[in-house]
């Protein structure tokens, strides 16, 4: 039992740092990008600010759309890979 327990702990730690890394990137990074967009919208130079804000909001929209796609794809029992920036959906191997 203790051996299996140690195994579980090791597997959990293996998984959790990946979760942490991905989550910091998406869960903290995207809100920061969103905040940057709001900042540039509020800035003085109207046209430049709006263009920059638009680009930043596209980045956020990409993140949200990926999340949505992931929920739908995994609900359908598909695998989804983000390895090539554009999400690729496939049947589970």
């Amino acid at each position: 039992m203790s051996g299996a327990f140690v195994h579980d702990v090791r597997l959990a730690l293996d998984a959790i740092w990946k979760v942490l890394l991905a989550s910091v990137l998406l869960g903290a990074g995207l809100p920061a990008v969103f905040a940057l967009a709001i900042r540039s919208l509020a800035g003085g130079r109207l046209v430049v600010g709006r263009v920059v804000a638009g680009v930043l909001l596209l980045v956020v929209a990409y993140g949200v759309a990926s999340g949505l796609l992931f929920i739908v794809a995994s609900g359908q029992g598909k695998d989804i890979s983000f390895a090539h920036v554009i999400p690729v959906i496939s049947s589970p191997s």
Partner: protein
Amino acid sequence: MSAETLILALVVVTALGFDFTNGFHDTGNAMATSIATGALKPRVAVALSAVLNLAGAFLSVAVALTVTNAVVHIQQKDGTPSPSLTADGGQQLLMLVLGGLIGAIVWNLLTWLLGLPSSSSHALFGGLIGAAIAALGWHGVNWVGDGTKLGGVVGKVILPAVLSPVVACIVAAAGTWMVYRIVLGVAARFTDNGFRWGQIGTASLVSLAHGTSDAQKTMGVITLALIASGHWHSTTSIPVWVKLACALAIATGTYLGGWRIIRTLGKGLVEIEPPQGMAAEASSAAVILASSHLGFALSTTHVATGSILGTGLGKPGAEVRWAVAGRMVMGWLLTLPAAAIVGAAMYGIGHVCGDVGGPVVDVAIMLGLAGYIYLRSRRSAVGAHNVNDEWEGMPASGAAVSAPELTSGGVA
């Protein structure tokens, strides 16, 4: 009605009851922050969350038939019930599942009364573990994984419960800190509206993800009961009515609102502003989706709570009410053993009272406890009208129970 049909009917109805409690227990995970900051009106927030949970429940065609395999040995790897438990026409397995469900429901209702967010999945696991110990002994429980992937009580319940709030807390704290740094000095009229939309979007993602994952568990449990009693044979699909009933149960539960828990999460733990709300829900959505992608089972409740705590730590000068956080952690520690004790007791009582009397007595006890808890909750009712009141514990008792509130049903 034969004894087999009776217990099957009671298991199905009790499972739907559990799904319903699962719904209102978890509304706050997605919507507490949006309600607290006023990004959404309370009723609109719970309605949005309910619709997304409904959609989420229908989105998932993957069958969660093996849901109990994580913690107990009552199913084989392909999802069919263990033959030793179905030798008597499924009676023993159904009794076990019924006991587990009642343990989970009682714990969900008690924590709701106390306004504590706690994981419905862990309550279900706890109830099943207790019933399995009572029915099969210690070896009926799958304590640890097989060494190749995370499994068992340790791998699927305890470790995720310890690690996921910490991860969510770190992510939300980092997000909050950066957001406040970035918009420092920007006029509130720009930030408030922007973050309001950010909050609604991220909270919606959390709701949708919740619908896809949690409704499935009840679908799996009901289908298991149907297979055990010989009413269903496929292990790769579930009956349409099961899917429909579970989706509706979790959505109506969500719509009911679980206001006591929403209040604790939105007002009790941290005073939340729109940027914090967005950071918290973005963190929750990211942690839930990333861990589901990596096969790390975790509870939406633990993640949401960790995220909200994190936004309190990440905002300079914000106050975290550690006493409230401490109560929550205590609740999490007790979830598994408490639900297990009730689950074991229910199995024991059901076993003693026989094939027909057992399930009836069990359900009667559950209804009695549920009624008592509901009446207790009326003494200090929380609803859409007072969910955002200043935090001084629960709102004042007695006077809060007013006639319009009774008729509108916004009392959960």
